[in-house]
């Protein structure tokens, strides 16, 4: 929000005035109203504690984060480039495996990856769109440029917060919102539905959202998207496969299903193809998929491309398939599977962030500069025992944004999760979920680790309107 010299950046000036005009009391009141409205709407996630489950709202900050049009243009083209390359990469490794034959990526890294699904080999995926919904995590570094921290290509969530936060911030700062020329995000459900439909042959395809059920932390989002797309929200027990066709059980008998936007992990889609003891999935679903009678979105096995070790190769992947340089850079990543890089990591543990390759959600990681000596030593042992399982990155000074904390405005670290849809076309919704690390100084933004969120305003390209006199 502020330039290094403490002056408010141009695109924040109107908001700054609005905040000052409102004053502390009005802001606190609006924060309360907002939290209450989230609770009433049931925009909650469930925290499982000792023997009890409580519903909590994800803490939401009132102040929007603003991204000017020129910056967004870079993000948008960068994300489209990246997703195109990743889809081509998936089509290749589940097809001819040229990139492995050419030695760009080590074969064992891909074929040995826990998220690699050999069942997907030589399976036809329309438009080569393996990843239909992608939620990449970006951060802004010290030099002000955005780079990609992580690609989420399996079942990314958070888009309902993007939409709910927008509702809230529009109500909180109606004047600034009107003046600023904020690009709308409300078309997301509509775009998602056409993306999903473009994966089927028939234009009147029956689309459903597959949820693990009400006990899933993201259930609210599943129901929300189904409601806004106007399609049934189904659970595994509502579906049945018969003669390579998938049906849903309705009050009037079985009805065929063409496209399944699944919000369950690969392993729980079909007990016959994947994890046998799972009771969530639909037996026979994968065979119907192989037979081309139903489409699963995202395709199973996309996790191999957002693996934390494969991440290090994404710039090479982009160059290999598109013959372009990556527009959005990666964070420098050390692969502990390479012995030279491992010794560098071990020697610099106090400066690096070390992550387990298979883990997500902020679990299984060591933030070197914040860890105690004992923690670092314990982690070093784990590293040496199983180097293939770890990658390391330099700690990045990620950007902060002002947040309302107990009545005071304080800086907190933030990241940015935009949502990219890919079917017949690739589209980026002009908006994002900005995740906030609520503890002062903390760099971890995951909601399971005490993260919050705020709205993100992407401005239409006419910045002159914004400059307040």
């Amino acid at each position, binding site marked *: 929000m502020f330039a290094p010299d403490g002056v408010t950046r141009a695109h924040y000036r109107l908001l700054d005035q609005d905040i000052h005009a409102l004053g502390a009391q009005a802001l606190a009141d609006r924060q309360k109203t907002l939290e209450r409205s989230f609770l*009433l*709407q049931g925009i909650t996630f469930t925290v499982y504690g000792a023997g009890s489950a409580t519903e909590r709202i994800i803490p939401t900050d009132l102040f929007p984060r603003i991204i000017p049009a020129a910056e967004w243009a870079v993000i948008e083209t960068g994300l489209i480039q990246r997703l195109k390359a990743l889809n081509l990469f998936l089509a290749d490794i589940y097809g001819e495996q040229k990139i492995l034959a050419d030695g760009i990526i080590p074969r064992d890294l891909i074929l040995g990856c826990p998220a690699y699904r050999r069942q997907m080999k030589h399976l036809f995926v329309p438009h080569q769109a393996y990843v239909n919904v992608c939620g990449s995590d970006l951060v802004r570094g010290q030099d002000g440029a955005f780079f990609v921290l992580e690609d989420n290509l399996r079942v990314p969530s958070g888009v309902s917060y993007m939409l709910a936060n927008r509702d809230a911030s529009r109500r909180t700062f109606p004047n600034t919102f009107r003046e600023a020329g904020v690009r709308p995000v409300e078309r997301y459900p509509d775009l998602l539905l056409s993306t999903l439909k473009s994966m089927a042959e028939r234009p009147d395809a029956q689309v459903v959202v597959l949820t693990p059920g009400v006990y899933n932390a993201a259930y609210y989002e599943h129901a929300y998207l189904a409601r806004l797309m106007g399609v049934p929200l189904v659970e595994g027990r509502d579906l049945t496969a018969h003669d390579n066709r998938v049906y849903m059980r309705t009050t*009037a008998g079985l009805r065929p299903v063409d496209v399944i936007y699944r919000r369950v992990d690969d392993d729980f889609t079909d007990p016959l193809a994947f994890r046998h003891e799972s009771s969530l999935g639909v037996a026979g679903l994968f065979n119907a998929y192989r037979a081309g009678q139903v489409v699963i979105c995202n395709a199973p096995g996309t996790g191999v491309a957002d693996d934390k070790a494969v991440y290090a190769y994404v710039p090479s992947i982009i160059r290999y398939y598109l013959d372009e340089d990556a527009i959005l850079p990666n964070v420098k990543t050390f692969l502990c599977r390479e012995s030279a890089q491992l010794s560098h990591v071990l020697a610099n543990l106090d400066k690096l962030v070390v992550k387990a390759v298979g883990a997500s959600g902020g679990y299984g990681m060591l933030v070197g500069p914040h860890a105690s000596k004992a923690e670092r030593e314990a982690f070093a042992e784990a590293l040496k025992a199983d180097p293939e399982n770890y990658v390391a990155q330099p700690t990045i000074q990620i950007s902060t944004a002002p947040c309302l904390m107990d009545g005071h405005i304080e800086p907190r670290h933030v990241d940015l999760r935009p949502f990219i849809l890919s079917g017949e076309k690739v589209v980026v919704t002009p908006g994002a979920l900005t995740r906030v690390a609520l503890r002062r100084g903390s760099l971890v933004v995951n909601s399971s680790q005490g993260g919050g969120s705020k709205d993100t305003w992407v401005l239409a390209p006419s910045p002159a309107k914004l400059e307040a006199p």
Partner: protein
Amino acid sequence: MMLARVADSLYWLGRYAERAEHMARLAVVMLNATLDRTDAADQAARIALAAVARGAATEFADAQAAARVLALDRESAASVVASLASARENARQVRDQITTESWEQLNFLYLRATGIAAEAAFAADAPDFLQRIIADLHQFKGAAEATMSHGEGWRFMLTGVYIERAQLMAQLLKVCFGGGRGGPIDDHVAQVSLLRMACALEPYLRVYTADINARLILEFLMFDEDFPRSIRFSTERIQEYLAHLSAGRDLGRHDPLRLAGRLNARLTYADIDEVEGGGAGPLLAAVVEACIAVDKAIHETFVAYPIEMRLPA
């Protein structure tokens, strides 16, 4: 055409919401009656507790303790908060099918009735606490009525409401007129309490004036055509909604419409003299049994049907 699981959840949402309202009303009437410190008041408490298949009132220290169990006991499946929690859980299952207006109303009500302040609010003024729940449930029904499409899902929900209502009303009347121990209630205060438990005092007075007697109460609560809580009103709605829901369908062996139609015919053409002569017990027991049978038939026809019979041609 809708998902079978969704239809089932909407049906149970209706049943639980109706149950919560009924239990809240029984508890309020019981609390108000006991303010009088008369034998009749004890009778009212006994009626309320017997109607929910609880033991005698003497099990509890006082009416407040009994009302507390009816209202707040999460362990008891029939209590107000347990019913509200089940209603809300079913609504959450089908969150994509009910409008935001009705969901928020139900969620708000649930959060207040189960929140940390609930116990204190109940202890401070139990009748007020319960009255607000009833008023909130009316708002929920009103919001649903005004905003939801009155299509298939709506009909499943209302079928649930009316089956629950017919069954609860039959149980309540069975306690009072079923020929159990003590015979039919004859005390004026107890009779007025019964009418209040059925939310029927004012509508009754408009039809029969202040002439309150057992025969007329029975006639009104069983057979009145226009009073929305009479058994006959409920059975007529059940038949009406099931007729819509089954239109153009092969209902198979378990035909809920046939069962519902037979029940409704029995109430439509019953005669109060006959019922009074032989005691209302058998007919009321038949109503409860028929409600259970219709419930089972709905489940087997619309929800848990065998797959091989229903593949599209």
